[in-house]
């Protein structure tokens, strides 16, 4: 079976084919750090490590300011302060990875939303895609390979976080629920209209891979009741739309999201990634809770990778692969987030050796 067939069997059909799937994410600065220590320069990691999944395109500009998504307002040797397309001021590192500092948000109430941002999100605007010819060329090039190709983007929780920040988002669910629901409704429709265009004009990929952080290490960011009321309906609407094209939906969320599992399952998510082990989550427990009717990707504790100790890595990986095999869990081998620069290439490659030896059903 080739990569496309393997991932379709796992993610779309929730089956256990001849082997588990293989994929990984990297922090932005990891490859550069590896290269400075002798790793081959400029390689495509999907090809280099022969991953099964290839993110291809679809991460279009989903902000209200379509053209000027990032305006740099301050720059130092180490950091850059920019204003995103929602008027939010964020400080990022220039040379390393990590979440940004939230300096300030303009979108703090529904008056600003209605007057300044909402009107720009109501219609299809193909400028969001940038160079559409290039998007088409990338799509055709990668779909001709045997990799499982996916469109990716962020979803409403991430879009709210980027536009109004966590505090306004979470407080407003209590203080101004109508605004938050209108925001989610408008943004979900905007995503659907633009994906409809991509599917019709560019092509239908093998699946969707959407990033939607809903948890932190110790718990979900909101109660399961709030998630059900404010997030679930919009997830379901988008996933129903994606399923109408007969393709599966992979959703990433950091943190402890076990309390949302039933809601995530009911929304139609086909594969849940990344199951942070640091948050006390285990792939076998998740799979059992949904009777193996959902696929899973991840759950290999990055802290074990960071020890750069083979025995630690074996202790983390082997029992989980055994649980996946024994319980017949549709599964894609992946760390529980992304590979940081502190993991040595030989450590990561040893994890792949373990996968090759033990990653079959």
């Amino acid at each position: 079976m080739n990569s496309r067939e393997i991932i379709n069997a796992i993610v779309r059909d929730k089956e256990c084919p001849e082997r588990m799937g293989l994929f990984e994410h990297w922090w932005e600065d990891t490859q550069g750090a590896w290269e400075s220590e002798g790793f081959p320069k400029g390689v495509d990691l999907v090809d280099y490590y022969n991953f099964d999944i290839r993110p291809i395109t679809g991460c279009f500009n989903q902000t209200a300011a379509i053209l000027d998504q990032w305006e740099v307002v301050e720059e130092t040797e180490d950091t850059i302060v920019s204003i995103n397309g929602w008027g939010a001021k964020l400080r990022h590192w220039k040379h390393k990875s990590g979440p940004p500092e939230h300096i300030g948000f303009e979108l703090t109430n529904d008056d600003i939303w209605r007057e300044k941002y909402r009107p720009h999100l109501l219609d299809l605007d193909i400028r969001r895609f940038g160079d559409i010819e290039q998007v088409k060329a990338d799509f055709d090039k990668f779909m001709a390979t045997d990799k499982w190709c996916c469109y990716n983007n962020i979803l409403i929780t991430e879009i709210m976080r980027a536009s109004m920040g966590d505090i306004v988002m979470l407080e407003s669910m209590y203080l101004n629920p109508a605004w938050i629901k209108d925001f989610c409704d408008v943004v979900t429709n905007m995503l659907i209209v633009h994906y409809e265009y991509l599917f019709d004009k560019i092509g239908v990929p093998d699946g969707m891979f959407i990033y939607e952080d809903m948890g932190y290490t110790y718990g979900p960011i909101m109660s399961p009741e709030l998630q059900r009321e404010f997030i679930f309906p919009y997830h379901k609407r988008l996933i129903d739309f994606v399923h109408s094209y007969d393709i599966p939906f992979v959703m990433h969320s950091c943190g402890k999201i076990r309390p949302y599992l039933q809601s995530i399952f009911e929304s139609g998510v086909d594969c849940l990634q990344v199951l942070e082990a640091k948050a006390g989550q285990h792939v076998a427990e998740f799979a059992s809770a949904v009777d193996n009717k959902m696929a899973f990707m991840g759950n290999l504790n990055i802290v074990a990778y960071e020890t750069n100790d083979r025995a630690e890595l074996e202790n983390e990986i082997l029992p989980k692969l055994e649980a996946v095999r024994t319980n017949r869990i549709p599964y894609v081998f992946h760390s529980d987030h992304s590979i940081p620069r502190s993991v040595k290439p030989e450590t990561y490659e040893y994890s792949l050796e373990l996968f090759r030896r033990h990653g079959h059903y």
Partner: protein
Amino acid sequence: MEEILTQIALCIERGKINLESPYPPDMKGQPGADELTKQAIEQEIAPGKILSDALVPGMQVVGEKFAKGEVYIPDLLMSAKAMNASMEHLKPFFESGEVKTRGVFIIGTVQGDLHDIGKNLVGMVVKGGGWEVIDLGVDVSTEKFIGALDQNPGAAVGLSALLTTTMPNMENIVKSIKEKYPDTKVIIGGAPINESYAEKIGADAYYPDPQGAVNFLNSTV
């Protein structure tokens, strides 16, 4: 007198800010922490008593529920908003020295790390625990922490790190603080941190939730 303090504590716990606030729905149309604190002061209840018998217990209840996973971040935020509404009325008494905080807590995200949400939540709850909170922000150097301690002798310190790559900076900061001010209590927290790491780097405590930090700080005074 006790009744109004109980009412204020309930408003803080439930996140009822003021009369206009629609949240929580079952308290709609009722006065909130704002009006009730003003009323308590007008009734000449000692501001220190309002702080210790209403604000602090209210925040403590919600902090403990959060630690147990019974309430979530939005609930904590609403409680902090209600507490801030009360604090506005108490501010003049803090400024005049009539009301004293339990101590000073200096908090910051360690150098190399820009993440601030966890730190801000801890700051809110510690403030609600009756402490003065000095927030040094994110990407805070050792020198800045030491400088803040120079200015606030006897203060406790809280360090936050989200990234495993910045944990070594946390260790360096703890070491420098303990070298210059060995009696300073240092609490650490953040996604990759645990108790054994706290022990390893010489920090006094690690807590996965803000109320744990408050309880620890209260035990030191």
